[in-house]
């Protein structure tokens, strides 16, 4: 393991922590029509696009566990999903797709939609809350949309970070 790889991984851990704190701190990320984005998700997905499968999976797990902690849900729910998804994204980005903004946007949109539907089903519909359709349309989908809208920031930031450190590594 090279020194630069350790530096890169430390940078990713700090990035995920910083993004989580930004996401959770009241009033830091502006609310649009009352919804705020889940910035940790596009961050770990962007990291996964530029990392190998195993590190991508571990960063997904870390981001997902933070997500669970902030949300107050079962610890491990989002951790499990994001670990699997990030490993898959890393595999797809290295072997099947070209890594560019467009593919990043497609992957982010798909993951956010699946995650939103799962979250809505497990934490809104299953506990038996009323107006499930309304909650999906007015809260869950707008949150997913706002989260996807962060893709340019997370993609280009992590691309720049990965390229900077990889250049030095080579």
């Amino acid at each position, binding site marked *: 393991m090279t020194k630069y790889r350790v530096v890169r991984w430390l940078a990713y851990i700090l990035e995920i922590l910083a993004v989580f704190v930004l996401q*959770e701190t009241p009033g830091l990320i502006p609310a649009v029509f009352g919804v705020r984005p889940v910035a940790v998700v596009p961050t770990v997905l962007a990291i996964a696009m530029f990392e190998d499968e195993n590190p991508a*999976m571990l960063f997904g797990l870390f981001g997902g566990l933070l997500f669970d902690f902030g949300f107050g849900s079962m610890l491990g729910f989002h951790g499990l999903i994001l670990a699997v998804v990030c490993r898959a994204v890393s595999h797809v980005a290295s072997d099947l797709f070209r890594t560019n903004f467009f593919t990043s946007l497609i992957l982010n949109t798909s993951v956010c939609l699946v995650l939103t539907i799962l979250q809505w089903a497990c934490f809104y519909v299953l506990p038996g809350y009323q107006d499930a359709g309304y909650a999906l349309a007015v809260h869950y989908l707008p949150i997913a949309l706002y989260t996807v809208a962060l893709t340019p920031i997370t993609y280009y930031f992590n691309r720049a970070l990965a390229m900077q450190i990889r250049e030095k590594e080579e």
Partner: protein
Amino acid sequence: MKDVFHSTGSKILVALVFAMIALMLYTSNASGSVTAKLFGYLTIPMQRVSTMVANNAAVAAGGSGKSKDELAAENQKLQQQVDELNKKLVNYYTYQQENAQLRKFLELKSQNPDFKPVAAAVVGRDPNNIFGQFTIDQGTQSGIKQNDPVVTEAGVVGWVSSVSSTYSKVTTILSPDTKLSAVDKVTRETGVIGCDAHSADTGILKLLYLSEGTKVTAGDLIVTSGIGGIYPRNLIVGTVKSVKHSDTDVSLYAEVSPAVSVKEVRDVMVITSFQGQGEALESFSSSGGK
């Protein structure tokens, strides 16, 4: 493809899947477990700092920025002074906020000698929680327990739904998980305060199960009844806005404007002890009602 499934990474992934499922089974909520405590120790101090910075950002930004072309040395000296004064100003506003908070704390305490309140700051609001659940920076170390009521000097905010050593999660009165016994201060009619996704959006509560001949009218003050042992008596919940017929049965309900804007509140008090706390709670809480 065969290599993909036999690789070390795949084995790690499978192990991880089982570990996560075990973790989910071990803890059905994100509090109390060792992992949650670790995350709490890691992130709550950071969230506390970032919240303080966010709260004081406008103040801190106000005094910076000086011309630097003329009299560089003097400018540097002045800049130092500005920096020092800014720090003092940030401290001043922090102390001012604390002072105001303690005054309210004292007021509440003098009005209710049986209360044991703990002051806390809101350090986290998760974007996924649509009913305004938030995290406060005090936990069991400050004497906070699960189900303790959370209030401000203006009225009820919610209750502590989970607690760890250094932080607690608060479920607000806008959540459908909150069922609160309340009484109209004018007519003395009782009902249950509840909420759903529609009314939570507009920030309006519902006083449910009013009888057909109800005398509750707009402008009436709604307070806690104290029944159930979760909330003390006579804490202000809000003011009646209108009275409407229920969509599902013959009863009526009153729309209540809450006294506290729970989606924006920044400082709260947790009442860790009060007269009548826990009475009738054991039989009541088994049904999940609050």
